[in-house]
């Protein structure tokens, strides 16, 4: 067991126990996962994957998506703008090519992120994926800011979220995690709709709407104009929305948004997260994940705390 989390010094035999977590139906060896679209097999060449509790893949759609025209990226003072446009090979290619690769190489639960342009499309995807072994759960992306009339439309209406989740939950016994958008008036209401539809967990936040312009030329730094803003600059926002959502629902929360360090992680646990993910930090520090788990494990050990001791106990 001690060897599961190699990054933690052997002198502290209990860190891996303190790090054990649950996200809905999933038992996680650590509470750390990766944010969809920011991590893939290549990233695992940087470190021992034992620091991760689960693997969330890039969002896939029913049919292949070309993605958005370049430039797709721009780094701002305190974060990153992206406009990938959910480029992906589509469900069939995913099942044929990617899934076997994941199944063969991942030593941890795989959560497949999916997005669709209609409730039907989402249902078709789950139906197909249900027939594939080696998947532990789904992250339902109803919140990508970079795809017009797809995904995001779902994310802003509580009624639609309810009917979508209710249909999907009837199709699977696997973990069903609904990923919410921060770009809404009342995230609690959307989270409650997902809970009512029998989601088993909530993921938040996806990217915030953001933009940057070359002040000399007036050219948008991102070809499509408005993009998705992520990274350290959105941390206060993600934390506020985690807290709001934790107050509103009982199902567990997989929180993300500007998490770079173990100190950031602790803030999110206090705010109510059961597990966390790092996204943009993976780019800025390819060793962010093992460093986070090492620091978190050390802190929990030193203070004899488990995550459930602090989860949601922020003092206001």
């Amino acid at each position, binding site marked *: 067991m001690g060897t599961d989390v190699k990054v933690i010094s052997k002198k502290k035999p209990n860190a891996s126990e303190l790090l054990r977590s649950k996200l809905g139906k999933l038992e996680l060896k650590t509470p750390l996962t990766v944010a969809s679209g920011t991590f893939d097999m290549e*990233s695992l*060449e*940087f470190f021992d994957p034992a620091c991760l509790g689960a693997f969330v893949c890039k969002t896939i759609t029913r049919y292949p998506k070309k993605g958005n025209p370049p430039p797709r990226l721009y*780094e701002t003072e305190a974060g*990153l703008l992206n406009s990938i446009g959910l480029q992906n090979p589509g469900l069939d290619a995913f099942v044929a090519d990617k899934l076997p690769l994941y199944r063969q190489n991942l030593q941890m639960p795989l959560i497949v992120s999916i997005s669709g342009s209609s409730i039907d499309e989402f249902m078709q995807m789950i139906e197909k994926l249900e027939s594939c072994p080696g998947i532990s759960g789904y992250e339902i992306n109803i919140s990508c800011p970079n795809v017009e009339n797809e995904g995001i439309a779902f994310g802003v209406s509580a009624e639609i979220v309810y009917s979508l989740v209710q249909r999907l939950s009837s199709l699977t016994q696997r973990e069903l995690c609904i990923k919410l958008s921060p770009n809404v008036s009342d995230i609690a209401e959307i989270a409650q709709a997902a809970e009512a539809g029998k989601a088993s967990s909530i993921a938040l936040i996806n990217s915030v709407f953001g933009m940057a312009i070359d002040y000399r030329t007036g050219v948008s730094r991102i070809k499509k104009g408005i993009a998705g803003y992520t990274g350290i600059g959105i941390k206060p926002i993600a934390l506020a929305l985690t807290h709001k959502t934790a107050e509103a629902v009982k199902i567990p929360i997989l929180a993300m948004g500007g998490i770079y360090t173990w100190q950031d992680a602790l803030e999110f646990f206090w705010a109510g997260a059961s597990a966390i993910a790092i996204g943009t930090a*993976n780019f800025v520090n390819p060793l962010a994940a093992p460093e986070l788990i090492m620091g978190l494990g050390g802190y929990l050990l030193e203070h004899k705390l488990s995550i459930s001791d602090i989860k949601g106990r922020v003092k206001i």
Partner: protein
Amino acid sequence: MNSSLYRQRAIQLREELSDDYFTLWIWDEALGAAGKPGQFYNVRALASLKNAQNSGKIPKLFKPISIFDNQGGRIGFMIKKVGEGTAALSKLRAGDMLELIGPNGNGFPIFRGKRILLVSGGIGYPPLWYLQKELINHNQIYWMHGGACQGDVFPSDEIWTEDGSIGRQGRVCSGMLENINKYDVDLIYSCGPLPMLASAAEISKSLNIEHYVSLESYMACGIGVCHGCAVPIGAKNDWEYLRVCKEGPVFNAEEVRWELM
């Protein structure tokens, strides 16, 4: 911890080239054996995340930099200071630490027995330097290099500057046709700013000459994960977005959908 892709290496030597250009040299035998011309590293002046909380300094992305030279482990990066990331690199001195991810991407395809034209613009120079060393024993090479002014040009067979401060005045592509004919060129490699590459590609296409370009793109991960660096590649009506950091940075010029860039 297995960090095969990520390293920190001390700068062994720093050379000044011109106002904004400089070269950083590191030493790593394993990397020396691995890197091919056209490949690049994502590099950064050592930045610590440890105290992101309270450091007032937010660590930024790595920046893609080509392998400029490789002498069996003595690896050189030739860099132009253009913005924040390269400015941080420009402050490094011997002994300072460089963070490296790579080698990334695919190199240039290597041929023998060709009459080759190299065309570079500005900071497109470094990958072609490494490339010509690889090609020189088995091919005939003519290298044209252009820049805005004298500070942008480096040793090559023919120099162009836009301001005419040295070499021929104008854009480097203006001289391509002449040299293609003169040297009976049957293979082109190019690297430089997008408009230059697009013109070069037009010329090679019109003459039906094989042509490989090394493209630039803004990158986040540099290893194929984020799809942020994608460019349109393929046939006119059947193209897709391929990653400069993974399927590139070298593409067949004819397959680049210049009209969509």
